[in-house]
Every structure is written in structure tokens, then in C-alpha cells.
């Protein structure tokens, strides 16, 4: 294990970082411990917004606001699904098995170890060497279309495939005479009667 050198400098950035980190962790814990889906989604929003704040501290403004833009919309959608697919007044009972929580603990520990070692082992570029805040949109664009153009194109193909798949699925439902609308039309109204409670159960476990 690499040696730890935690020499913290107490300035505004550090304080802001710790506040955001605490918000993110509190949000994540509340997300797991709440029982109503809407409460969970709100705490998830807190996590995402705190992460955006951390990106801002790292001078990655573009990434921070894209994070907010994408996840704020995603959270609203998730909230709607949470409202539609779970019962409003039912309090869920938690059935936690001891074996499962032990396995989860080991899994989390392993994940933390892997991430921690990987982060400690990475040689990061010195942030002082290049000013990140200036034109970071331009830099991301340049890198995306020169060095990383092949993964970028592959991703776009993947997304197109997923998109067409969604349309095909929605279409085949439509022809069988069910009441669900095609995917693009109403993100709210689709497939509510088809899968009544499955998503809710997944979230509560």
C-alpha cells in the first residue's frame, strides 16, 4: 500500500470540499435508509448536486454543469416513475438478511479497496501546469475529436442502438393492442399499467 501523505491545507477550497463531500455522503446514506421513493430520489439529487460542486472546485465547469443538466432531468423522471409505480401510502417493511448484508459489506470493502488503490496509484498531471478553467469546453472538444475520437464514435453507435431498441420495444407493445404509447411521446404516461410494482420492489431492497 502506498504511503499516505495527508497534508491538508486549510483554506476555502478545503472547507468547501469537505462540506460538499459531507453533503454527498449524507445524501447517499439517506438514499439507502429512506423508505419512500420520492424521499430517496431527493437525497439522490443532493448527492448529484454535491458531486457537481466538487467538479466545480476542480475547475471542471463544463463537466459540473453537464452533470447538473443530465441528472436534474434524470431525477425528475426517476421521481415520476417512483410516484407512478409505488403506492403512495404504503410503508415498506425492510427485510434485511444477515448473510446478504455481510456479503454487501465485503463487496463494498473490496470496491473501496480497488478504487482507493487505483486512485493512489495513478500519476495525475500536475494541475498547475495548465490552466484548466480557461476554455475547458474547448479543450474537452478538442480531445474528444482528436485523441478519443474512436471511443466517442463507438459510444454514439451504442446510444443509437439503444435508441432504436427502445423504439422497437415500444412499437411491438403498441401493435399487441396495449395502452402504452411509443417511447418518445410521453415519458410520463408510458408503460405504467404494464409493470405495476417491479421497479418499486427493486428500489426497496
Amino acid at each position, binding site marked *: 500500500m502506498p504511503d499516505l501523505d495527508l497534508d491538508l491545507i486549510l483554506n476555502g477550497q478545503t472547507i468547501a470540499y469537505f462540506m460538499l463531500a459531507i453533503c454527498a455522503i449524507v445524501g447517499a446514506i439517506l438514499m439507502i435508509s429512506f423508505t419512500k421513493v420520492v424521499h430517496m430520489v*431527493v437525497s439522490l439529487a443532493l448527492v448529484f448536486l454535491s458531486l457537481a460542486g466538487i467538479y466545480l472546485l476542480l475547475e471542471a465547469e463544463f463537466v459540473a454543469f453537464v452533470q447538473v443538466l443530465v441528472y*436534474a432531468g434524470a431525477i*425528475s423522471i426517476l*421521481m415520476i416513475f417512483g410516484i407512478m409505480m409505488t403506492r403512495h401510502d404504503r410503508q415498506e417493511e425492510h427485510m434485511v438478511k444477515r448473510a446478504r448484508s455481510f456479503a454487501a459489506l465485503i463487496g463494498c470493502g473490496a470496491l473501496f479497496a480497488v478504487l482507493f488503490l487505483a486512485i493512489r496509484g495513478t500519476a495525475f498531471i500536475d494541475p498547475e501546469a495548465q490552466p484548466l478553467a480557461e476554455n475547458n469546453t474547448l479543450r474537452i472538444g478538442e480531445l474528444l475529436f482528436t485523441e478519443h475520437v474512436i471511443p466517442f464514435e463507438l459510444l454514439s453507435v451504442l446510444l443509437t442502438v439503444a435508441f432504436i431498441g427502445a423504439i422497437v420495444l415500444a412499437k411491438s407493445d403498441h401493435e399487441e393492442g396495449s395502452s402504452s404509447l411509443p417511447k418518445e411521446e410521453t415519458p*410520463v404516461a408510458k408503460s405504467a399499467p404494464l409493470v405495476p410494482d417491479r421497479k418499486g420492489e427493486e428500489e426497496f431492497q
Partner: protein
Amino acid sequence: MNELIQQTFTWQNGLIFLGWGIVFLFIVLGFVTYAIYFERKVIGWMQYRHGPTRLGPFGMFQTIADIFKLLIKEDTIPKKADRALFILAPVIAYVPAFAVLATIPYTSTLGFADLNVGLLYYAALSSISTIGIVLAGWASNNKYSLLGGMRSAAQMISYEIPLVLSVVGIIMMNGSLSLRTIVEGQGSNFWEWNLFPQIVGFMVFVIAAVSELNRTPFDLPEAESELVAGYHVEYSGFRFAFFMLAEYVYVFAISALTTVLFLGGWHPPLAALDVIPGLLWFVLKFSFCVFFLFWLRATLPRIRVDQLMSLGWKVLLPIALANIFVTAVCLEIFSK
């Protein structure tokens, strides 16, 4: 103001920033008060009525009285409502509305933050308000407010995409997301504004913006005749005032954004008129945008939910994408 912002951050500077923020908050509150007054007056005139006339000269103190009434009203929270979220929802709806104003440049010197991702900042923060509206609808524990909240979310998410895509053409022409750079890229004659090269983008932007504001003809989330009042049925007193405030601050924001992006910001319409200060031109264009919204409200009927969705996804989105493509081709041909 730019020199002030670029200083190092100390306690003293922090207090100065806070002071400016509060001054600006009061300017915005003043705008909201008189925007409501003018909305009632303009709609009254368009419908052969007088609008408010009683309180003060020409009824000018009517809105102030209304706000005062809202503030002294009993603050009710329904017994079966989700108390914490019920209280939180107006805050989540309002804070982003005020925060987006930070990045708008009013003149070449007056303005708050010149972010290099200004446009993205606007789009990102305004989408947080949707969460507040859905939460308000859900936390009220009322069928109508839930319906209103759901409609609002569907609408705001669907129209956010054409709204952001419609300004991509401008971003490509200017090579920057900074609102200040976008205004500086436009000239002092009205044919040098982004309005004409980006006329298609402008039309998509206006339609999507009106829809994002939940105003007529896209006011389905608060359709009085079918949903009582939509997501804020159960709200009263100052919490209700906060939703109204958020709505009108977005009117301010979207009008300022339209002015900045398409109507040349502080530039005069003809180079000869350059003697008139830029702030005045900004205010004139901005007021026209606000008036346009009131005008629409007095003129158009509300559209149906299915029409709303098919307009957003089948008309505006393809047009916005085609606009990006055509702009890219034109830039490639003409700028070489």
C-alpha cells in the same frame, strides 16, 4: 464591476458581493411587482377592460397590496401532506430561478459572473426547478397538484431539449458558451444580430422558452379550468408567493436571455444610435420580450397534452437538429 469580481476573495469582498446580490434581488422583486401589474393592465386593455385601477394612480399599488396580502395570510400545510418536502419545494423552485440571473451580462461593463459556460449554466440550473415543481405536486397529497406536477415535468423535460439545441447554432457561430462573448460577437446594426442568421433557431427557442415558462399557450401544468391551479393548489401565503415569484423571475431570465442571445444585448439597432447608452437598449429589448409573453397570453388558447408532446418531439426537435446541421455546413462553406 469586472475589476471587483476579479479581486481575490476576502471577507470584505464577500460582503460587497452579498450587498450587490441583495440590491439585485430587490431590483428583481421590483420587476416582478410591476411585471404582474403590467400583465394585468395589458391583458385588460386587450380584452376591452381597464385592469386594476383602484389603488394608487392607475392602480399602480395593486400588486404591492396583493403581495402584502399573501405575506400576512395564514400559512397552511395540509395535514396529510409530506411536511418536509412541502416546505422544501418552493425553495428548490425559487433558488435556481434567481441563480440563473448571475450569468447574464446587462451592458459591456454591468453584469455579475462571466462564466465561460454561461449558457450551459442557465440550462442546467433551470432544470433543477422542475424537481421543485414535481415535489410540490407530490408533497401536497392532492390529485390535482400531482397531475399538475407530472404534466410540468413531462413538459419541461421535453422542451428543454429543443431549447438547448436551438442555441447550439449560436454557440457554433461564436465559438463560445460565454454570454458576454456571444453579445460581443454581434454588431451594432440590427442585421448583425444573431436573429437573422439564426432565424430558425430563434423561432424554436421562443416556442420552447414559452413552454419552459409554463405560460400560455403551454400552461397545462396550472390549467385553471381543469386542474384548479395545478401543482400549487395546496399552497397559500408566502409559499405560494414563492412559486409565483419563481415563475416571474424566469420570465425575467428568459427575456434577458433572448435579448442576449438573439437581439444583440446592449448593442443599438443602428450604429448611428450608439450615443444612447447600452443599458437603455438592453432594457428596451428586454421589455419587448416581456410584453411579447403577455401578448401571447392574451391571444392564444391552451393546447392539448398530446399536441404539446408531438409539437416538442416531432416538430421542434427535428427543426433544431436540422438548424444545427445547416449552420455547420454554412460555417464550413462561408468562413473558409
